[in-house]
């Protein structure tokens, strides 16, 4: 099989079938873009989980009138608690310093804190298993001198729910668009086989094997899949440049939700390319089995 001959057949096929080929490329692009978006969202959520679950600790805020004895008792109990990994006492001054550092870019907020009395003292408790927050809360919440037990994960729950929602929606639309891409590929190859039935008949007569007859169809699908995947990667890159790094810049600057890095964007591209090529190629192969029977 000479490559030039196969190439010529593919180019002829793609050109003759241009509108359908474009339809395949567009549907593949849409489904892969959404799949890529859902993968990126997953990575962002994972990163958030890692950050908040591993770095942040449960805060046990103390009352203004807490006594030194109460503090000492609490600290001893916490250190002896098997569920606690690490305990850190944060004084009012330290709390203020932390606050100033964390919100350094929001001067209005920082200026509104007038003295060290505004922020309470606290124990920052790191749990061995962050899911055991409820135990800590019930055990220490009613202790003398304790104002309240605060779990930052709980406050972030709506945010995780939002990310989960984005992920789910993107995934569902990706699946629906993927199904559309499959059907379009199927139809395109069927049309290609139909418009080339004369060539196929002649190829059979002169003794061309299945491989020779099917190869141009499969490669047509693979090329369309590759172009669709390439367009999807391009769209994701544009989305990163214009939306994530542009429109939503200040949203990410607040530091609550981390932005997707370029590394993560490029990290999902091999998956999209492999998936686009494999799915379009497989769909073309199966269709050609049915419609290019030798």
């Amino acid at each position: 099989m000479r490559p030039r001959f196969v190439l010529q057949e593919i180019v002829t096929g793609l050109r003759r079938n241009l509108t359908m080929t474009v339809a395949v490329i567009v549907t593949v692009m849409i489904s892969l873009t959404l799949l890529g978006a859902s993968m990126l969202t997953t990575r962002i959520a994972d990163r958030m989980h890692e950050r908040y679950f591993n770095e942040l600790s449960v805060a046990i805020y103390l009352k203004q009138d807490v006594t030194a004895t109460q503090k000492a008792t609490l600290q001893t109990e916490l250190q002896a608690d098997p569920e606690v990994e690490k305990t850190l006492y944060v004084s009012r001054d330290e709390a203020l310093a932390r606050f100033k550092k964390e919100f350094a870019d929001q001067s209005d907020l920082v200026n509104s804190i007038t003295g060290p009395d505004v922020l309470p003292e606290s124990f920052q408790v790191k749990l061995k298993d962050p899911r055991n927050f409820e135990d800590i809360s019930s055990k220490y919440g009613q202790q003398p001198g304790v104002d309240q037990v605060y779990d930052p994960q709980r406050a972030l729950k709506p945010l995780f729910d939002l990310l989960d929602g984005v992920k789910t929606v993107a995934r569902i639309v990706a699946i629906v668009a993927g199904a559309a891409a499959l059907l379009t590929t199927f139809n395109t190859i069927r049309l290609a086989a139909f418009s080339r039935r004369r060539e196929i008949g002649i190829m059979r007569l002169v003794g061309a094997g299945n491989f020779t007859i099917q190869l141009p169809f499969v490669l047509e699908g693979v090329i369309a899949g590759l172009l669709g995947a390439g367009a999807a990667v391009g769209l994701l890159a544009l989305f990163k440049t214009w939306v994530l790094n542009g429109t939503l810049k200040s949203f990410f600057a607040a530091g609550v939700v981390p932005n997707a890095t370029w590394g993560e964007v490029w990290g999902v591209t091999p998956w999209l390319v492999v998936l686009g090529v494999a799915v379009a190629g497989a769909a073309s192969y199966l269709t050609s089995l049915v419609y290019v029977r030798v």
Partner: protein
Amino acid sequence: MIRFDRVSKSYNVQHRLALDDVSVNLEAGEFVFLIGASGSGKSTFLRLLLREERPTSGTVHVAGKDLGRLAQWKVPAFRRQIGCVFQDFRLLPNKTVAENVAFALDVTGASRHKVAAVVPEVCQLVGLKGKENRLPDELSGGEQQRVAIARAFANKPMLLLADEPTGNLDPQTSIGIMKLLDRINRTGTTVVMATHDAAIVDTMRRRVVELAGGKVVRDQNRGVYGYAQ
């Protein structure tokens, strides 16, 4: 070369047989006319030779191979040994004469070197020298059939099947095509030609196998179209 041994073929169980207990032997290098009315089984005969169909009963041997037992994946290699020519030429309209001829070589994986050598040679043989770059619709019917013959002959087949190759051509052009088929036959290629053209059969005086209702009703060396005494 070709042996039909008590071959019957029915396309549909309730229907009558397209071929009914046909036994016939064709020697290598023979030129055989297959005649008979429409529906007499000529096309089925050719389709069995091409292994487009398998016999319902009996065996078809071509070049020592039992086609009924030939594995599906071996069919393409088998067909490369057979050239086919049809009444409607079956050329690719968007390819030139040379590309149409090269097509038969391309799909079998021939090297570019071989294609470059064989195509001009075959075009010359069929009398199309100088028209290699024409498209089929720029050629006359006779010339188009010559392209089809060139394509069929490009792989140097041992057997050439022709299904009414002169059916769409005027008598004068038909004679030219017959001379060409005769010349190919002289290179050692067995030729089986289904035809309705009485004048050609009577002029050539070759072996005639006549089918009627799926049975061989006449098998005659140096035969004519009509019933000879």
